């Protein structure tokens, strides 16, 4: 009898044990992800003393954030970051992967080599590059240039170079691990295709163009979206290397959130901006899921 009534409710005994197994995870998620997320949305609609809510103000915080003089600069910069990350960061790992797969000797050495910068802690990496990019006679790169008889450069303090250089350091660190993913993709390609092509007289260039690239195309689409999502949230690289300068030329939206929360203690404004970022990222993620789904089909 009982089983029947349970069935009516849509719950069977089997389901119960399933739910019980999931329960710990659900509770953890609820406490550490969903609850803070909901709380953050709520905070963005109130005024607050610290993080204690005071008064409901609707979308005032959103208006405040959008009208801040730094918002437009940060918004533009974030897209400049994405653009440069596509120009510099997207193709580098593909080229690395193709070259390494085509290598005959010391493949393992090269694989480790490209992955090596990834082992470095992020903060140490940006500080190290900070020393490299120092303008004047004490910067490492300028010292090297002077040995070659080339005049010293301004590096990060040249507003035109700030974002591309920050992206270059990020690529230096991150390209290796992405290249490994591409290599795995390339290794998954049926070797018979290459053999057949070679027999038909295809050179390396043709092999790459007609076999390798089409086969890693869908993988590339996925990684592209992932890269855009990551770069959208860029924070500590510009924060440490330039503090958003010179004159806001490298400030990112995430740094605005950081400033609101940790410089001004204006948590509602920080929450409002975070919610907006979240919405953009949800859209991008939906796009990503659609892409991966069509790939599976």
């Amino acid at each position, binding site marked *: 009898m009982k089983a029947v009534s349970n069935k009516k409710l849509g719950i069977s005994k089997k389901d119960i044990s399933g739910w019980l197994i999931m329960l710990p995870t659900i509770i953890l998620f609820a406490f550490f992800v969903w609850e803070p997320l909901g709380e953050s949305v709520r905070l963005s609609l109130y005024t607050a003393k610290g993080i204690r809510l005071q008064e409901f103000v609707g979308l005032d915080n959103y208006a405040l954030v959008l009208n801040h003089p730094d918002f437009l600069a940060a918004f533009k910069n974030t897209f400049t970051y994405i653009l440069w990350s596509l120009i510099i960061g997207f193709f580098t790992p593909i080229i690395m992967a193709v070259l390494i797969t085509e290598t005959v000797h010391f493949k393992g050495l090269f694989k480790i080599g490209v992955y090596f910068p990834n082992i470095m802690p992020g903060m140490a990496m940006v500080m190290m590059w900070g020393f490299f990019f120092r303008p004047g006679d*004490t910067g490492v790169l300028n010292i090297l240039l002077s040995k070659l008889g080339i005049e010293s450069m301004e590096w990060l303090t040249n507003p035109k170079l700030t974002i591309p250089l920050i992206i270059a350091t990020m690529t230096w660190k991150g390209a290796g691990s992405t290249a490994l993913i591409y290599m795995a993709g390339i290794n998954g390609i049926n070797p018979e295709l290459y053999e057949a092509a070679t027999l038909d007289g295809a050179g390396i260039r043709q092999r790459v163009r007609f076999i390798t690239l089409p086969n890693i195309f869908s993988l590339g689409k996925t990684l592209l979206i992932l890269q855009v999502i990551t770069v959208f949230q860029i924070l500590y690289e510009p924060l440490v290397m330039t503090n958003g300068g010179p004159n806001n030329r490298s400030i990112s939206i995430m740094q605005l959130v950081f400033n609101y929360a940790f410089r001004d203690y204006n948590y509602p404004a920080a929450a409002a901006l975070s919610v907006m970022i979240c919405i953009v990222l949800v859209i991008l993620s939906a796009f990503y899921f659609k892409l991966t789904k069509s790939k599976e089909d």
Partner: protein
Amino acid sequence: MKKFKKLISLLLCALLVMSTLIACGKKDDTQETTQGTSQEDANSTTPTQATEATDAAADNIQLTLGIWPEDTLTADIELHEGYVKTFNASHPNVEVVPAYYKYATDTFVPLAESGNLPTIFESWFTEPQKLIAGGYVADITDELEARGWIDKINPSIKDLLSKDGRIYGIPRDGYALGLMINVELFKEAGLVDADGRPIYPKTWTELAESAKKIKDATGQAGLCLLAKDNAGGWHFSNIAWAFGATLTTEQDGKFAANVDSPEAIAAMEYVKSLKWEYDVLTADPTNEDWGSGFAELGTGAAAMYIAANDAVNQPTQVNGLPVDQLAMCALPAGPSGDQFSLSGGTPYMFSKDATPDQINAALDYLEIMGKAPVVTDDAIAGMKADAQNKVANGVPVIPRFPCWIADDVLKAENDIVTEFGNVDTKLFDSYFTAIKTQGNLRTEEPGSAQDLYAELTKVLQAVITDKNADVTALMKTADENYQKLLDSGVNK
């Protein structure tokens, strides 16, 4: 068998859920448990002692000192251990808990919201209004009133620490900006008088010329200019005043930005010329902040730096400049002879959770340290110990900026400086004469100083990274932005 397996897995699940819930439980529970066990332990040994202990615990209070020195400063810790001994002699019921806390904006709010702030802590001069607005600090007006300290706080500093007539902190030190000088570099450049004392620049133009001479003679930067964060705008506001600018005006309680006045633009043009005409700045001002400026000065990479008297330990003790190689003069005057020193105070503040008893204990502790407006034997001993400690660590012992205006305190402080003075006072004369001049001291711009500084810093970054920067246009943008921030913030 299958059923048994299922039962076990169900049990395990339940256990996991339970443990998760327990882990999420309140912190108080665990405290209770530990207290419970310790009492049980006591019971098992001598029951009478245990009851005594609990009775005493009712009267006992804890004083957590965020102002305790950090672990590496062993000499300072010894000094404080001495203070604690004196303190406990008169306050046997107070348990002093060292809890070194270096104020930082990323750690402060979590500490405060979780109720873990030390009873007393130091903050930055930029923070008091923010902390008061957030409800993080205790109102100590009544405690100060009972002690009769309120009228003794330097009024300009009191304003920085008050809101709506209530007071939330007391000054650790007052400060007024001046120009710190690396004497070695001045000597190398030949900028010294017959007695070997550096020849101070009296105007900003002279400063640029002296800086140029130093750069040519030594290859080191003449001036360390800050342009990384708000400290850049903070220093610049003082330069702008000398050029005759007032950056914020107030009318009927509404603030108006006045950043694009001809005077302010002239000041910014001057800063621009330091980079593109004189070329006397450090390699990358956009990466210089308050701390790195002292490193440049202390290590001889820059000859001059805008800094305050309460930070003389920074170039010397922290960055290794010999104590006799540091001089300090008044900030230079502008083209029409205007000369100002930006002044303020570094505060001691108290946790919002502190009880009046705890606050009083903390204030008593400050008395023993000699940082309060009272002259007792303990206080004098505290001041002496502090001065001795400075001498031993190569920190100049110079008069404090008068953050308390009680005559007996000032006299006691001056006596200590005379007794322990370890520097040629003539090296600091110009600075102290200037700040005693009527009308020299100026507190920071009203309105929203931090927003103003942020806007000015952006302009600073632009003019020192771009030779063709249009100063007038940049200052106009800064003015518009600052007005916008004033309107959306304080002018409501």
